[in-house]
């Protein structure tokens, strides 16, 4: 069974890049546009990993992460925060919110894949790379 990754990202191009990258790497991609949607999909779809953009309109990525991590049923899902460049203290904030890791935009797609594999329990079968 393919691993499923929930991408919470408001920017369409970024979503598409992640979708193209992750699906080409053999993952199934679930897309959420807002923080609220991200939480809802985390509850209903139970993804294997969440990529969380921190700068979301309304409920931001940190708060969404906090809420997901406070749900006992969901807290085991690894969350990788995607932070903007150079906002000092984002690493600390990400860790405090409960993120398991963070990558800084602009991320190299290859580096992101490495980080995702680190936090998934095992390599997904059928990976093309």
């Amino acid at each position, binding site marked *: 069974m393919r691993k499923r990754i929930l991408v919470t990202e408001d920017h369409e191009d970024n979503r598409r890049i992640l979708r193209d990258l992750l699906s080409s790497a053999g993952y199934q991609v679930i897309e959420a546009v807002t923080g609220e949607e991200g939480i809802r999909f985390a509850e209903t779809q139970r993804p294997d990993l969440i990529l969380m953009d921190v700068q979301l309109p309304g409920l931001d990525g940190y708060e969404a992460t906090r809420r997901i991590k406070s749900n006992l049923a969901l807290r085991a899902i690894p969350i990788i925060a995607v932070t903007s460049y150079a906002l000092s203290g984002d690493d600390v904030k990400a860790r405090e919110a409960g993120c398991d890791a963070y990558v800084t935009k602009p991320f*190299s797609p290859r580096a992101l894949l490495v980080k995702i594999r680190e936090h998934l329990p095992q390599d997904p079968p059928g990976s093309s790379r």
Partner: protein
Amino acid sequence: MRGWLIRLVARVPATVRAKLLAALLAMVVLLIALGVVSLQALNAANRRAEELAKLQEKLAAYHELQHGALMQNDRVSMALMVPSEGAAARGRPAQVRQRAQLEFELLLRQVDQFRANFDRHRFDVKDAAQFLGPVSEESHWLSEILTADDQFVKTVTQIAEAIRRGNVTEGHDQLVRAAPLADQIELATGNLAVLADAQMAASIRQSRAAYLTSRWVVTAFAAASVGLALLLGYAISLSLIGPVNQMDDQLRQIASGNFSRRVAVENRDELGALAANLNRMSEELGRLYRQLEDASRYKSEFLANMSHELRTPLNAILGYTELILDQIYGEVPDKIRGVLERVQNSGRHLLALINDVLDLSKIEAGQFTLSFNDYSMADIVRTVSTAVEPLTAEKNLALRVVVPPDLPRGRGDERRITQVLLNFVGNAIKFTDAGEVVIRAGVADGRFLVAVSDTGPGIREEDQQRIFEEFQQADSSSTRPKDGTGLGLTIAKRIVELHRGRVGVTSSPGQGSTFWFELPVAAEWEPKA
């Protein structure tokens, strides 16, 4: 009391000049008053001296009178010793008469002289009495002397006439009757002398007491004057110095950027006006400063927003490019790959520029926050050397790292220090075509010293300071222009300075360059106020 007086002086609605003038005048008035009091004391002393002189005169007069009375009495006794008529008859009457006549002549002369003296001294005494005030006891004795002497003179005159007639016996008899009068006069003059002596002694005592009193008064007055003058001077100078100090303090506060303080100066003179102006200036400066701060904040907010807005599409461009290059969308012909790599390089350069501009604008606005944690300088050097290894390999340069094994752990912003070192090493590799790049780290006197040496073209001395300024690279005519934002060294310098450290370069053309930075092992983060 003290503060009250100073406040009172401060509140007087007069100019400083008027206050100083008033104080000076007050002191002059005090001096004049002191002079008047002293003069009065002097006058009193003088008057007492005159009194004493008069008394002395009177005393002398009384003593002379007393002496005269004594002499007169002596003469009476001598005259009484002249043998009487009866005795004369037994001896040689002519001789006796002659002697009696002689004695009585002498007595008469003495009586006349006493009378003359008495009259003279009576005027003196009257004069003294006028001056000193009448003394009843004295006039009693004087009138007694006068009465007794009138009678005595009359008697003696009769005796003299009797003797001249040759009647010695009658003269003798009358003299026996007159002798008590002479005694009475002598007693009275004696009493007068005693009285005058006592007066003199009393007067000397009084004069002494008066001298002591006036000395005390003058001294007290002088002391009070000096005290008052000091108090006045003190109050005036403090009422001037206090506000000046306050305003000095206020100016210091303004100089250090605190515009919220106001001086409370109660003076209603030039200093009060100055303080009011100072307060107004402080307020106006504060307002301007806040406006500037707002403007600066708007600027950096704008820059932050703008760079975010710029980065979002740029991220998409870079992301898609990389996906295409990774052949996620299918085969990429070599011709297109080359062009795409150029797109990717330009995009990355643009991103670096945007990031550097954002960093720098934050530094300028004082909003560049460092997050201080414990770090290992050895780890930073390792991270950087690992990161640049592919670049040195590409250019066939040797990369050497010299780090002592016992380097202590430091405190600072690890990510930013890494950025600084990465910038130095990146520059060294960029500008060096052959040879080696050496990273040295060490610690001395509680400070890390990290140096990056290369065997590149070197930098002319006149360019060495300039290269740490914005958008400056060493003169491009002497070196091949290199890509880069031109902001890296400026940002590196600011980051090191925020750690209370320093950056520098030693270099000479053709000899390579050494860029170094040094910072405290345990740096403290002090955000800008």
